[in-house]
């Protein structure tokens, strides 16, 4: 089975085989074990061991590897093909901006319908006695705002939806 794995701005094609995986034209003898009662895993590629920790996210995996945390989205070949064949499916669709931590909504910096550029401040959340500013990742239009100033939010709470543009 072929999978498209996306993380840290890269998409990698990984194919599973009888004895392991194929990646970038290399056949690797690869196995993974779970350490009992923990998120720790032991990936073996040939004799090489790579310790990591993995937990499942919505439709992918969050990996702790080499002291880093990497979020990876996974699509199998069929899903990937369907998405590729339906261009524009994602474009212009509302994107959700969610709270990455608990805190107090100090200020909304934008209003509904406002067009923003990449880097525009959207919202400021106070946590650990610091003000944390969320900025737009790309150009787009604010579709709706769910957060209210002066209220507290929890991680994952919807803050606002945002229609991005191609490009």
């Amino acid at each position, binding site marked *: 089975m072929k999978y498209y794995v996306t993380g840290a701005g890269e998409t990698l094609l990984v194919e599973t085989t009888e004895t392991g995986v194929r990646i970038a034209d290399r056949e690797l003898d*690869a196995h993974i074990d779970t350490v009992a009662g*923990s998120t720790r895993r032991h990936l073996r590629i040939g004799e090489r061991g790579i310790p990591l920790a993995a937990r499942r996210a919505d439709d992918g995996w969050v*990996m702790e590897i080499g002291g880093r945390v990497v979020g990876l989205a996974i699509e199998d070949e069929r899903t990937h093909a369907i998405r590729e064949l339906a261009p524009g499916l994602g474009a212009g669709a509302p994107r*959700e901006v969610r709270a990455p931590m608990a805190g107090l909504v100090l200020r909304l910096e934008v209003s509904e319908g406002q067009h923003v550029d990449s880097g525009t401040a959207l919202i400021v959340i106070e946590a650990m006695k610091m003000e944390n500013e969320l900025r737009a*990742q790309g150009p787009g239009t604010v579709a709706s705002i769910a957060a209210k100033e002066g209220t507290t939010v929890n991680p994952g709470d919807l803050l606002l939806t945002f229609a991005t543009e191609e490009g």
Partner: protein
Amino acid sequence: MNQPPFPRLLVANRGEIAVRVIRACRELGIESVAVYSEPDRLAPHVLQADLSVPIGPARATESYLDGGKLIAAARQTNAEAIHPGYGFLAENPDFARAVGEAGLVFIGPPPEAIAAMGDKTRARTLMQDAGVPVVPGSDAVTGGQDAAAAARDIGFPLMLKAAAGGGGKGMRIVRALDELEPALNRARSEAEQAFGDPRVYLERFLERPRHIEIQVLADGFGTVVHLGERECSIQRRHQKLIEESPSPVVDEALRERMGRVAIEAARAVGYQGAGTVEFLFVDGEFYFLEMNTRIQVEHPVTELVTGVDLVQEQIRVAAGSPLGWEPDPGWPLGHAIECRIGGEDPFNGFLPSAGRITELEAPAGPGVRWDSGISAGYEVGLHYDPLLAKLVVHGADRLQAINRMRRSLEELHVAGIITTQSFHLAVMEEPDFLAGRLSIEYVDDHPDLLRDADLPLLEAAAIAAVLLEEERRDTPRPESARTDGRPRVRQLSGWQRAGVTDGAGWGRRS
């Protein structure tokens, strides 16, 4: 066991420093009393103390910053002394005085010494009188003309600083005369807001100095010793991240010179207990920055290269014991480095990360010290400082210490929250750090430290994810069916976890 210095001592703090002080008490045969706010009811410092007293809600002003409650808790438990740790009330002369007036011993210097060092312009004057080199500068200025006259004497670029405080508030760099007046107005207004005191003074601005500080220890019989230096140049927004001892640029002669000056500084304010005299160091010259009148976060690096337990000595001296030993001419022994492990995401503008720590494996083995205020199952909240633990290593030389720190950082496993572990790992491989080329601008000068995971790491992670995905798909999933074909993670990830997948998008406001 010898007679303990006090039968019982209250620790007016939380987190790793409270655990540190409680450990010192246990080793001295002192019963420890912890205090806790509501969310800290089962925090590590409470679990390790002999006694504990609740002191109010999460908000620090109603618990850890309420001196009256702390003194009442000490009385209620018959504690004879209060150790303030660092932060909170540790450098508040009124609290120190109130503790004494309640008939309790404050583990720290006399209130007058705290007050003298707390007022930055007064401290400057005192230090100048004591022959301690200070950055060329002015007294507090009253207006634009006054400031302009002082600026001409000092030269540009210069720095505006609040007389009443530190920590970056009310600070402004001024590079030319025409910038002076608007900068002065802003600095005065910031200082008024932050400290209730608008006074501002001018100092020459030093380009890329190092931060080097001297640990001192003084008893009540006039003995003041120094325990060498710590280099703390690696900072982010005036918060130290990595400290080491000895400094790569301090030799025996310079150490002796700085040590003598630090002892003079302490004597000038009648110091007692453990304290730190901070200097800026540039072009072979050092200048007094400030004195911290308390134990510091980074005290373990000095403990490792001297073998002296600073917290135990601090308590012994406060109990009226003489120091009773001399600094060893063989110090420093080897090399020590500390990395502060914070609950912050270094690839995401050091955004605080809270949540339950589901798994924790601390590094261990030769030369590794782990001072923490967390444990598996502990809920990291957003009420207090994000410092979770200090990873400190000791090696025969700087190279062995660095290699040991890298090995230890690789061993550390924390699940449930994001920590600064990966930032420290990047520093341990960065050529300027390896060569000891440091300045307080180090973090800003090395933006690559905050870059994302590289391709080999990503490939390994991708292979692991695919193998786990196949395993998962082969296993019946009773709870939730798979969703439609849209790759939700990919779409959301750029927004929910910006920085991890698409580059940093969050930042703290400066």
